[in-house]
């Protein structure tokens, strides 16, 4: 039974940030076409190579490198859909991709949790996945949900257990970060079909989608690609995500790193289209930097210009984009670094116009969960959302009559106009929560309390007993077959 209504508040804006010129976008696209045609991309999958061969790409079976002529790239890319629907468990929370709207979710998928009561650091479990799915369901800033941490107590079938526990705690669209390989993905399709009632319904309103990573530079992951093909056939969306690291897995120059990433994403998208024309695919490049002294993974150097250039590249190809926000390197819950690094991300990515955005609430480069962190980061997201809302200018808001009543030197506190508007004029964030003495509370203390409150009071509708029975049966079968 649901005790509180779930609503979502994506970022909406007509403003657009363009960090690349049309000419630069063409140059980047040309670089991708050149890489695909001359260097090629490694697809260590017989299935993928057969599909490419069938359509006239040049496949070297020995090196597993596929070179794709530009005509074939362009032809395949012409069937990739620009907009589609991400279905939710609750139909009211279905996400219809559209221009000017950016849907956010939490970060994933961490492996350590710092318990807010004991302060102890431990490995994440299925229960943690459920806990965070419930908090996600409550927060309006979260338009869909992501595997926030791994269900490490579930072994190789953990990706399926993560879907199960998410559905029991969350009514939004679910994007998996961990389903790898044909077998697991087939089970995923089966679970989605049970939830929806039929495969046609899954196709219309896919309740799940999947992140598939390429391996920079220019290699595809066999398991990821073969799993993606299974999902593509069922009309379930995938995100092809490249994570080029400048200096180690990509050139140490921005344009070069983006070209490598783009070639990876486009090669996988072409495959998806050749196998199932019209298959829904998101484009994503999350580039990072390798520290030139230690190779440590750095997401937030001082100069991260064109952070969201990949969003423009995606749109140039006619694809929807997944942008990455958040992902601080700080291991601390509430240090200056943990907030400052990520503070402008939601604003910039909203302005860049990414259709979906992941990444709020983890620390230590996407590995560490403090359950209360998402409550703090939620504020940054709303701040960006409010920044992009229009200011209303009207006789009522100009309030000339009230100003003339007050006269120079007076005050507005005793005005009815003030009484009407003051309550809502200042929106309280985590830093402006009052205690019983009228003092502002510590934001972390408030965040912890809110987590406890949500877990106690927010109970999203669970799948019907019938559906749950079927899901349990699928999990049992999968556990038996795959854990063996």
């Amino acid at each position, binding site marked *: 039974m649901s005790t509180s209504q779930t609503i979502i508040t994506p970022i909406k804006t007509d403003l657009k940030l363009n960090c690349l010129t049309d000419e630069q976008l063409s140059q980047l696209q040309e670089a991708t076409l050149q890489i695909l045609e001359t260097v090629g991309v490694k697809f260590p999958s017989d299935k993928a190579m057969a599909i490419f061969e069938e359509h006239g790409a040049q496949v070297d079976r020995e090196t597993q490198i596929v070179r794709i002529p530009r005509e074939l790239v362009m032809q395949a890319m012409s069937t990739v859909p620009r907009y589609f629907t991400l279905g939710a468990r609750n139909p009211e929370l279905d996400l219809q991709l559209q221009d000017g709207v950016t849907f956010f979710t939490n970060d994933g998928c961490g*492996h*350590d949790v710092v318990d807010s009561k004991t302060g102890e650091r431990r*490995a*994440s479990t299925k229960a943690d996945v459920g806990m965070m799915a419930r908090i996600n369901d409550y927060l309006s800033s979260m338009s869909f949900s992501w595997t926030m941490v*791994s269900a*490490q107590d579930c*072994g*190789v079938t*953990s990706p399926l257990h993560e879907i199960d526990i998410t559905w029991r705690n969350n009514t939004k669209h679910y994007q998996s970060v*961990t389903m790898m390989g044909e077998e697991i993905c087939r089970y995923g399709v089966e679970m989605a079909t049970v939830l929806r009632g039929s495969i046609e319904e899954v196709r219309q309103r896919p309740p799940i989608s999947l992140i598939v990573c390429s*391996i920079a530079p220019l*290699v595809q*992951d066999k*398991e990821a690609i073969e799993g993606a093909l299974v999902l593509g056939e069922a009309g379930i969306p995938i995100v092809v995500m490249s994570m080029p*690291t400048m*200096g*180690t*897995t990509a050139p140490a120059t921005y344009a070069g790193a983006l070209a490598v990433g783009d070639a990876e994403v486009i090669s996988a998208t072409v495959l998806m289209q050749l196998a199932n024309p019209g298959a829904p695919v998101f484009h994503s490049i999350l580039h990072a930097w*390798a520290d*030139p*002294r*230690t*190779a440590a993974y750095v997401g937030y150097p001082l100069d991260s210009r064109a952070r969201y250039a990949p969003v423009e590249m995606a749109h140039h190809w006619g694809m929807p984009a997944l942008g990455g926000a958040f992902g601080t390197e700080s291991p601390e819950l509430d240090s200056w670094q943990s907030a400052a690094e990520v503070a402008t991300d939601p604003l910039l990515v909203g302005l860049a116009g990414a259709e979906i955005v992941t990444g709020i609430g983890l620390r230590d480069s996407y*590995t560490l969960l403090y359950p209360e962190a998402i409550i703090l980061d939620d504020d940054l997201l709303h701040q960006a959302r409010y920044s992009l809302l229009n200011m209303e200018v009207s006789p009522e808001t100009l309030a000339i009559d009230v100003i003339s009543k007050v006269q120079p030197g007076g005050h507005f506190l005793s005005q009815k106009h003030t009484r009407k508007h003051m309550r809502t004029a200042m929106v309280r964030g985590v830093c402006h929560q009052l205690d019983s003495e009228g003092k502002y509370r510590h934001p972390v203390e408030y965040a912890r309390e809110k987590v406890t409150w949500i877990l106690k009071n927010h109970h999203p509708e669970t799948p019907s007993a019938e559906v749950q029975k079927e899901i349990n049966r699928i999990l049992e079968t999968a556990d038996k077959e795959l854990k063996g």
Partner: protein
Amino acid sequence: MSDMFEKLAQAVIDGEPEDAVALATEALDQGLDPLDCITKGLTKGIQKVGELFASGEYYLPELIIGADAMKDALEILEPALVGDQKRDVVATVVLGTVQGDLHEIGKTLVGTMLTANGFRVKDIGVDQPASAFVEAVKEVDATIIGASALLTTTMLQQEKLIQALDEAGLRQKVKVMVGGAPVTDEFAKRIGADGYAEDAISAVNLAYRLADAPV
């Protein structure tokens, strides 16, 4: 003659693999002792590279290209060693990322740092089953294994690796060190590994300890 050793060292310091190979070939043509070329030339060079890296002057690409220059020249010089001549190494390490895991950078970096510190490293790559580690140990007669895992689902392969060594009767002979972001000291102890290190520099110190060599 000593001029040639200096040139070999310099090619490593400058990170010029092509020069290093050409010089190694020339040295053999001149009839110089390959072991001397290694110890008085290449090794001196890589030691200097290590110092420059430690002092902050060199960045990773300088370190890695320097190590490459040494490796390429060794491929010419080592086969020319005669009798029981052997390059002096701290220990031989088999290094790889475990099965199902494709994360490469951390493992490669550990390998470079070990090489620069006098270890012989056999890097078997990513996504390697336990059997590949075992085979490699036999092939190069290694005494240390370094196994990397970046995923919570593949960490468990590190335990399988230790079992496989047991079954192959090699567990007494090889020390196993494990690493990768989700791996912890506690996990390493639990699966019976001989050591865990959180970054490449501590990995080198750990390897020294496991090799019973002075740090």
